[in-house]
């Protein structure tokens, strides 16, 4: 069971108040992209054992989307942060590095 802190309303809630929304920081490839780019955008997703960056929605709460950095193996939540960002904040990256030195996830490390 995960405990997530919603950065939009401040609730510290358990997992069933939220809904997972797949991988975070996706870059959209739409009109004008190549078939390969569009395919990867739709189907090629990270599925790590370890550090993962995800979108979550506070579905049974304030209704807002936010992002979370967590560990799929230990279920530790490193932190949650605004969906209006293009990369995880430094303090969350530092927390991950403390637990998982040398981690990387797509272009982040």
């Amino acid at each position, binding site marked *: 069971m995960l405990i997530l802190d919603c950065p939009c309303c401040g609730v510290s809630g358990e997992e069933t108040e939220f809904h997972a929304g797949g991988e975070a920081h996706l870059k959209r490839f739409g009109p004008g992209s190549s078939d390969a780019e569009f395919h990867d955008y739709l189907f090629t997703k990270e599925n790590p054992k370890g550090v993962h960056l995800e979108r979550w929605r506070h579905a049974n709460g304030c209704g*807002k989307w936010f992002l979370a950095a967590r560990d799929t193996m230990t279920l530790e939540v490193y932190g949650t942060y605004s969906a209006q960002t293009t990369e995880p904040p430094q303090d969350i990256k530092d927390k991950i590095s403390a637990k998982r030195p040398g981690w990387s996830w797509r272009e982040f490390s």
Partner: protein
Amino acid sequence: MSDAKSALPGARYEGFVKLREMGLQGMITLRGDLASAKLAAAVQTATGTAVPGQRQIVTEGDRAAAWMSPDELLLLVPYAEVADIIAAIETALAGEHFLAVNVSDARAMFRLEGALCRDAMAKLSPVDFSEAAFCPGDFRRSRMAQIAAAMWMPDGQSLQVICFRSVAQYAFDLLSAAAAPGSEPRLYG
């Protein structure tokens, strides 16, 4: 004029706390910039209250304003006055980016009364209802078993819940079962 009815008129149950459906309640969803002075003035006119802080509800007589999300309030006002109040809000906020909608008939409201109301609610929602975490003035959106719900304590002995009207019977049945005599979890009282 149509004959307006609440979801479960007069529904009551008496267990280790008293449960009742609260009848017709005016509810207005107000979305916009909660930091805007114009919006604050419109809320003051509608409910007689300030804009509530994050996850708070402020009450004035038979009216209240509750914080739903960073850009949304729920205004509780007398049912018969909703149309006039929305018209006033629309005038006051003309030119701003906002939305004011009558959701009175899309919602149902219940009240639990009794010293153990926290205990009954704790069976249904993954929320810390201890006095340290949840008091009169707090407003919490969460789930109640399988449905979304918003709850607050008008006073230390009662708890009110708002849910969608379409699930009012489910909510009433849940709350009744949670209040069944002899099933007190006594987590909080």
